[in-house]
């Protein structure tokens, strides 16, 4: 009647059905128990299952002699937090890091290793705030990004950096690329801003993310209600900010089951990771610079239409930093990105395939709710610097350009068309034709990045 006769295999099987806490606790029972519970293959499975570890490392990536050691180190290093929340936050970072490793290793390089409890405490003491639990764990795992922020006074380059892991967009001369601030910057910049904007300090806002470029875009975490806000055009004059995450999802109650505690920072990063993994947003390459582009790539936010071989993809983004919530007619600013390409079979008209076609006219119909607010015609498309008449050829990279429109409401749509000639403008090979731009939405979204 004793477990001695039960083979190690069966013993192992019993242990595999126990939680790590129980395995650890019964190691004290007897020498045999201690021996069987030290089997590192057991701890290797636990490390993989709970933390996705394939190597015995601590949260900073330092190697440890065994998986048993590694698990113990993780549990001890994070003993001040609900373990299920630690696992959830790790999964959030893992999701983003995996995408970065596979698509944007240059940005992954800028992700700093985790902050210590002391560094987080310093932030709380200096700024007189209490960070919500999920955000604390987020920073324990990665302390923001090491980015050389543009020094506005001395730099002649408005481009800042393109390595922000939140990413950005550009239209006309407005260029944004958002990165996560490390704690030292959070402290410095929050103090700077709150010197000018006292309400931010009183209401416990800290700056957590910002654009590294000349164009300003600021994200504040409110430590009282756990929400993330982005500054609008009237931030300074009117304290206007827009919430970035659905309010009903935020749950800070510490009485809750660990992993159900969620603040806006965690929800925001989890959603961002999902979008990257799904391909809803993608990397773009412009010249030598790669960056995460926030214009949606997938339906229903991105429309696609093909006419005579001309493919037009279109999607829009709300631009909170240029939105003025006090305004009447021109309240919400949206930027839209149009991508043009010619399919492999060329420009097909009446059974004839042309090797190129060129744009010379555009027409836009803009709706706010369902009312037409704008009906514009014009020559060419307005690119970065000037009018452009894109020439499309099969096999070429998509021609993309961005423009913007202001709406009195947070909801609307755009549709339109381009007039093309087969061949070239200087040498048309046939009659002009209309290529449709399928209707795409202008929507203030649930999650603002």
């Amino acid at each position, binding site marked *: *009647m*004793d*477990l001695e*006769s*039960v*083979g190690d295999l*069966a013993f192992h*099987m*019993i*242990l*595999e*059905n*126990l*939680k*790590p*806490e*129980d395995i*650890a*606790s*019964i*190691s*004290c*029972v*007897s*020498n045999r*128990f*201690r021996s069987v519970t030290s089997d590192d293959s057991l701890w290797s499975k636990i490390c993989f299952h709970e933390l996705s570890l394939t190597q015995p490392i601590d949260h900073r990536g330092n190697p440890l002699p065994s998986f048993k050691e590694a698990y*113990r180190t993780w*549990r*001890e290093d994070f*003993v*001040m*937090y*609900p*373990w*299920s929340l630690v696992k959830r936050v790790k999964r959030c970072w893992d999701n983003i890091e995996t995408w970065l490793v596979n698509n944007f290793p240059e940005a992954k390089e800028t992700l700093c290793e985790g902050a210590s409890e002391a560094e987080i405490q310093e932030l709380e003491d200096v700024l007189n705030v209490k960070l919500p639990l999920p955000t604390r764990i987020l920073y324990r795992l990665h302390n923001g990004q090491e980015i050389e922020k543009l020094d506005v006074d001395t730099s002649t380059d408005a481009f800042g950096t393109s390595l922000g892991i939140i990413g950005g967009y550009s239209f006309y001369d407005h260029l944004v690329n958002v990165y996560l601030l490390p704690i030292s910057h959070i402290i410095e910049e929050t103090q700077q801003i709150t010197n000018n904007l006292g309400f931010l300090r009183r209401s416990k806002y800290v700056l957590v993310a910002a654009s590294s470029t000349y164009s300003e875009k600021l994200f504040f975490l409110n430590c009282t209600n756990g929400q993330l806000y982005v500054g609008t055009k009237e931030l300074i004059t009117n304290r206007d900010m827009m919430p970035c995450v659905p309010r009903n999802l935020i749950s800070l109650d510490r009485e809750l*089951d*660990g*992993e159900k505690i969620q603040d806006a920072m965690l929800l925001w990063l989890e959603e961002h990771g999902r979008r990257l993994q799904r391909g809803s947003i993608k990397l773009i390459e412009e010249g030598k610079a790669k960056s995460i582009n926030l214009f949606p790539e997938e339906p229903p936010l991105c429309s696609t239409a093909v006419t005579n071989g001309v493919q037009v993809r279109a999607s829009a983004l709300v631009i909170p930093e240029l939105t003025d919530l006090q305004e009447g007619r021109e309240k919400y600013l949206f930027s839209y990105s149009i991508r043009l390409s010619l399919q492999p079979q060329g420009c097909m008209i009446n059974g004839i395939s042309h090797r190129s076609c060129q744009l010379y006219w555009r027409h836009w119909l803009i709706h706010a709710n369902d009312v037409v607010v704008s009906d514009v015609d014009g020559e060419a498309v307005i690119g970065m610097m000037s009018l452009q008449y894109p020439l499309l050829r099969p096999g070429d990279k998509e021609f993309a350009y961005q423009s913007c429109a202001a709406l009195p409401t947070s909801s609307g749509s755009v549709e339109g068309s381009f007039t093309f000639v087969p061949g070239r403008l200087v040498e048309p090979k046939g009659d002009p034709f209309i290529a449709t731009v399928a209707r795409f939405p202008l929507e203030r979204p649930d999650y603002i990045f």
Partner: protein
Amino acid sequence: MAEEKSQASSSKMLTLKASDGVLFEVELNIAKEMKTVQAYIDDCEDIETIPIPNVLGKHLAIVIEYIKKTNEEYDAEFEKQWNMDDLQLLLLAANYLNISGLQECLCKAIAKRIENKSPEYVRKVFNIENDHSPEEEAKLRKEYKWAFEGVDKD
């Protein structure tokens, strides 16, 4: 699995003899679920009575019943019926007879009974003597202190 147990295949009967002499007549396809018995049959084809020296009649009866009836529902109810001693003996039987499904079921059941319990309780329940010295035990408790403290036991 249900098809294997139907009467459609060979209904050759086999006798299993428990350690206390109790005899059980079972169909061949039931007996084959016990890999140890299968090996016996492979070695000596004509055998009719197979001795099971390590298992009491009481437990062999339970094992045979398990093989006949096993499915998700049955398994879930199965493990609730037995006390710790029986569970251990059944595990030893399942081990010896090499019945993987039953082994898994019993291991889960035993794990369920010791989860969230102290080392003292586990010793009592398995009738195990603590052969750690006080220093050794203190060292282990320190090594695994995260399991004994922490914010919550989720």
